C-alpha cells in the first residue's frame, strides 16, 4: 500500500446518459457523460443517487467497466428482484436523463498495472475486470492480466463476448461452453492462469468470494495477496 494515492471524487457531480442498452432482461449498460470528471483507475466504482420529488434519495455503488481513456463512463448494472435502484435503471432510465454521481470511489480494489494479476469474477462481478482488460489492451500490457469469468449461464455473464475474445477463461456452472462441461471453477484450470500472478482480485457475491479464495489458495496465491470486492443484496 505504498503506491501513490489513487484519485477519488470528493464531491457529487452529475452525469448525463448518452447511451443505454439492455442486453438482457437482467442487465442494463449505461454510458454517462460526467461533469467535472475525475479520471478513474480500473477497479474503481461510482455511486449513482436517485432523488424523488420529496427529496428522498436512494444510492448504490456500481463498478466502472470503461477504460479511463473512454470519453464516457460505463457501468453495467444487474437487476435485482425487488430492488429499488437497479430496476429503475433498467426500466425507466433513458438517454438524456441526468443523474447525481459520485466517483470514482475506492483505492483498494484498483489494479496496479505493474503487478501481474489474476482476476476472478462471478456474474456481474466481472465488471471491474472489463475496465482492467480494456485498459491493459490499450496500453499493451494485457499479458499481465488473467481473468476468470464465472456465471451460471452465458446469458448471465455480462460482457461474455468481449471477455472470451480477449482470452478470459469462461467458467459456466449450468451449461456447457464449447468443450468445457458445466462446472464450478476448478483448481487445475486456474493454476495455469495464476502462474506468475503476484496478486488476485476477486469480485462477486459473498459465497462466490469465499469459494474463489479457496481455489486461489490451491493455485498458490496466499490470502494476503487477495483483494476482495463483494456485493450482497443491496439492490
Amino acid at each position: 500500500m505504498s503506491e501513490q494515492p489513487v484519485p477519488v471524487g470528493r464531491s457529487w457531480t452529475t452525469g448525463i446518459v448518452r447511451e443505454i442498452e439492455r442486453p438482457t432482461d437482467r442487465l442494463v449498460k449505461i454510458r454517462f457523460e460526467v461533469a467535472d470528471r475525475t479520471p478513474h483507475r480500473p477497479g474503481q466504482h461510482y455511486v449513482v443517487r436517485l432523488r424523488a420529488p420529496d427529496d428522498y434519495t436512494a444510492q448504490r455503488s456500481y463498478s466502472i467497466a470503461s477504460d479511463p481513456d473512454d470519453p464516457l463512463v460505463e457501468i453495467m448494472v444487474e437487476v435485482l428482484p425487488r430492488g429499488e435502484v437497479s430496476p429503475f435503471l433498467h426500466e425507466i432510465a433513458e438517454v438524456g436523463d441526468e443523474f447525481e454521481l459520485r466517483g470514482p470511489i475506492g483505492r483498494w480494489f484498483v489494479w496496479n498495472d505493474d503487478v501481474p494479476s489474476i482476476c476472478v469474477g462471478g456474474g456481474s462481478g466481472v465488471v471491474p475486470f472489463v475496465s482492467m482488460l480494456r485498459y491493459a489492451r490499450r496500453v499493451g500490457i494485457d499479458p499481465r492480466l488473467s481473468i476468470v469469468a464465472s456465471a451460471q449461464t452465458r446469458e448471465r455473464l455480462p460482457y461474455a463476448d468481449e471477455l472470451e475474445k480477449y482470452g478470459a477463461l469462461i467458467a459456466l456452472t449450468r451449461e456447457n461452453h464449447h468443450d468445457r462441461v458445466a462446472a464450478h471453477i476448478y483448481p487445475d484450470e486456474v493454476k495455469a492462469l495464476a502462474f506468475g500472478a503476484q496478486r488476485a482480485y476477486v469480485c462477486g457475491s459473498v459465497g462466490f468470494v469465499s469459494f474463489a479464495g479457496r481455489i486461489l489458495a490451491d493455485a498458490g496465491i496466499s490470502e494476503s495477496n487477495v483483494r476482495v470486492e463483494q456485493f450482497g443484496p443491496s439492490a
Partner: protein
Amino acid sequence: MGITRGFTGRDRKGADERLPPGQYDTGSSWPVLTAELMPRIDLSTWELAIGGLVEQPTSWSWDELHALPASSYNGDIHCVTTWSKFDTNFGGVSLDTLLEVARPKSEATHIVATATTGYTTNLPIDDVLGGKSWIVWEFDGKPLAQEHGGPVRMLVPHLYFWKSTKWITRVDFLDHDEPGFWERNGYHDRGDPWLEQRYQGDA
C-alpha cells in the same frame, strides 16, 4: 440537486425515523462487506491487546475476556453501502471495562483498531469511550458468525459499520489521527451516518 425523472422510490409511508438519510431497512438480512478473505482465527492463541498511549498496556485471552462483566448493545447498525439493520443485539464486553485496566493517557486523542488481517480503522476517543463501543462475540445470543467478524469484532454502532472492525486483535491509543484502511482508500475519517459522512470530502 435536481430530481431524477420518473423516480419515486420505495413506499415511505410510516418511514422509520431510526433510518439515517440515504439508508434503507435491510430487514432480517445482514449483508456482508469486507475487503479481504476471511481469516482463520485460533482462539487458543488469539488475544486482544490494548497499547500505545496507555498507562498499562494489556492483553486479554479469549477466556480472560469472557471472565469480565458482560455488556450488550441493543439497537441499530448502519453500513455505508446504504443498509441499516434495526434492533440488533450484540453481546460482549464494553471497551470501557478494558480501559479501566489499560487507562489511556491524557494526551491520547484517537485510536486505531487493528484486525488479524491487518485491516485498520481510526476513531476519535470520544467515539469509543463512555458506553459507545464494545468488543463483541455474540449476536442474538449465538456466537458471532465468521463473515460478520466472528469470532470477535469491535462494535461502534453510532458510526458507519466499517468502523466496527471485524476480527479485532489490537486497539492502540495515539495523540493524533491516523487514517485506517477504508479511510486511506477514500472513505470518511469519522463516518457519522446521521451526517452522511460516507466519503472523503463529505462535511
